[in-house]
């Protein structure tokens, strides 16, 4: 399932990039991220606890930064497994310099397996909602950080 969207972040592109490039900052904005432990260059072990209503699961897995072209393009790959199944996702962010603001074009390719497939009709909506939460959080951080 492919989802995509655009967002505007209220900070110049180099600041946005700096934030994206900080795994812990990134982790703090990722909905449900409980642990992010580096295991190698650009590789992490992650524990995510995601709850959509009653559908709550703790996903253990890997996060890998697969592309990093400062300050333009950033791609991550996430895999997680829980009792309900597995999630694999590839996300790409492209930053566009808009002066004091930064435009973000993002897209994601989400794959689920196990019992989660039974909820496939809701996955794009949920993924978009989580992406929205992520960007809101980033934007808040960027605005808080600015004088």
């Amino acid at each position, binding site marked *: *399932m492919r989802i995509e969207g655009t967002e505007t972040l209220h900070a110049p592109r180099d600041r946005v990039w700096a934030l994206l490039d900080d795994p812990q900052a990134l982790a703090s904005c990722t909905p449900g991220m409980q642990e992010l432990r580096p295991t190698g260059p650009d590789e992490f072990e992650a524990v995510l606890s995601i709850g959509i209503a009653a559908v709550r699961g703790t996903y253990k897995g890997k996060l890998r930064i697969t592309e990093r072209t400062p300050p333009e393009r950033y791609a991550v790959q996430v895999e997680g497994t829980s009792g309900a199944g*597995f999630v694999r996702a590839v996300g790409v962010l492209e930053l566009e310099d808009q002066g004091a603001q930064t435009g973000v074009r993002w897209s994601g390719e989400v*794959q*689920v*397996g196990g019992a989660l*497939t039974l909820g*496939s*009709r809701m996955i794009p909506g949920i993924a978009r909602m989580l992406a929205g939460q992520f960007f809101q959080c980033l934007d808040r951080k960027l605005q808080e950080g600015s004088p």
Partner: protein
Amino acid sequence: MTTRWLGAPIKRNEDPRLLVGQGLFVDDVQLPGMLHAVVLRSPHAHARILRIDVRRALEHPDVLLVLTHADLPPSLREPLPKLIPHPDLKHHKTQYTLAPDKVRHVGEPVAFVVATSRYAAEDAAELIEVDYEPLPAVVDLEDAAAGRPALVHEDIGTNVAAHSVQRVGDYEAARARADLVLARRFVVDRGCASPMETRGVVAQWDPRARQLTVWDSTQAPIPIRNGLAALFGLAQKDVRVIAPDVGGGFGPKIMMFYPEEVLVPLAAMRLGRPVKWIEDRREHFVATNHERTQIHHAEIALDREGHILGVRTVFLHDAGAYIPYGLIVPIVAECTLPGPYRIPNYHAEFRAVFTNKTIVSPYRGAGRPHGVFVMERLLDLAARELGMDRAEIRRRNFIQPHEFPYDVGLIYQDNAPLVYDSGNYPAALERALEAVDYPRWPEEKARYRAQGRRVGLGFACYVEGSGIGPYEGCRVTVEPSGKVYVATGVGTQGQGHFTSLAQVVAEALGVDVRDVHVVTGDTGAFGWGTGTFASRAAVVAGSAVHLAAQAVRQKALQVAASLLEASPEDLELADGQVRVRGAPSRSVSLGEVARAANPLRGVIPSEWEGPGLEATRYFAPPRGTFSHGVHAALVEVDPETATLRFLRYVVVHDCGTILNPLILDGQIHGGVAQGIGGSFFERLVYDDSGQLLSGSFMDFHIPTAVEIPEIEVIHQETPSPLNPIGAKGAGEGGVIPVPALVAQAIEDALDDLELEILRMPLHPDALFELIQKATRRGS
């Protein structure tokens, strides 16, 4: 008075206990100390297994056993048996009991857990850690045939399991002299039977008697017994397989083996306690066999009068991840395609292809809906092209009633020549057309149109190969109580064998059908037979029952003749008595005859061939019988919402001699409903990674009573000359022509859009897209 039992609408013997909740389905079997099993299945369509760690599961206090591939005895580490080999099947890959190092479809068994309850077993299964390395999934059939994006079985270097060609005449020559050649690509997508009862197995091992008893919701208990005996090194007599009440079968409940049919007995033997495994609905969607996906490149060559000169179909058959069942489905498809038509030149060629999806084996219809869809669609499109009436083009090509036996020129699924035994194809079409008043349809349609309603009429013809060998057997015993016991090897899954087979006996012995007790599907009662499939039980087992009952009848006459001091020729059997014709006071009850046939002292005459009123007989037909029929329907389409409603549905059905019209109608109704489901509602949707997205009843839409219309059934009886009762199979006819008919009806309803429906099943979204495209084309 003698009552005629055969052919009468007798209500069923098996119903009262089913109605009060006293049926015995596998899940109803409860044994002291019974344990419960769960299968851990692959969540991936295609992946290498890097590591399996079962330690945490074993630590669970309620767990007694965890099995992975490594824990199996050597004989069970091999792939499971090749069921039906074929010379064209070069790579006969079969499934494993538990996956060794690679999984090839979502749902493939990886580990097996036995605990004190199902709940605990599911808890423990979650504790098993499996590391997978996902591989690209082979999902698209045409890609798969080209070896993309991966190989399901690396060792064979291809995804093509078989390439097979059958030819009649010379298609290329026919094509060269044709006035019209029409070619299309047809797609039939996956579907599944989804019986209301999922699969289930209970096994009990008695170590002292060395007896293994297995309750299995299978359509073929005797082959399962034979296979289990071989696998576990037991005598066949020491394995008893019981297929008790089976909650619907429709084909996929025949395998040898589903892994659980081996794992449950294995666990029961290891643990010395009874073990139950019941498939849940979520498992069922990925672990029980599917059917249907085929892509046909088909071509028809005709003269300008609409006579068929030749047909060619070159198709891909999706086998799924393994091909235990061999080439039955594609062979049935290519052999069903010619249908009731004379096709002098025919070229059929297929490749059976591995994909990373659930295994394919026959599901009600079994290749026949595909063949009929392709043929009927070709005729519809040709008629359109030639400006000819769609009924007329069929009339011009029908095999005529005097041409039987008719040799189609192909080799059928039973390896016998495809020779139609009997039938009357033109009459069946005319009856159907009369029932829907086809001559007046144009006016009727215009009247609907004037009301702003889009109603189409569709009809489709088919021939159904059924009642194939090799054999079935039966033992009929009259007990001194006068009750008759009948044991046969075929299992029953709701088709009413407890009644229809009893009718055959009641007819022969002149007893009340309620006094005839049929046992099916218990190898302890009868140990020879193959199973209930291919619409064969009533035909083949029914014939065996007839032969055994006739033998008992002869013996009853012989024995009674000596009791009544009359000649056997002067006796008749009626009302449970043997009596002297014309002197009803001189009679003995059949029970007394049974007692006399088993004397405690004295001599048994040699012509009795042993004691008792009992006989065992087998019936082995030389080849299959061929039922046929025509369905016609009025379908209303709402072009704005792309939804359908059936206004009328008529079935003309010819399956030879009718044993019980009540049961026969039920078979037809159920078949039509499945046909409608498989034409418009039910879909197995896979994503690119091989995940089944519609794997629940929330998304796999079996039609309900609201979607299924009233079905009007018209019977035609052309008996088969190939068996003593003249019967032909009736189990699948209801489902076979439905996709072809639905396509034609929709095209008719929306004829101004000039749609071409080349894919089944449809669904609102697909119909919307077709309508959109046509509208855009038109504007």
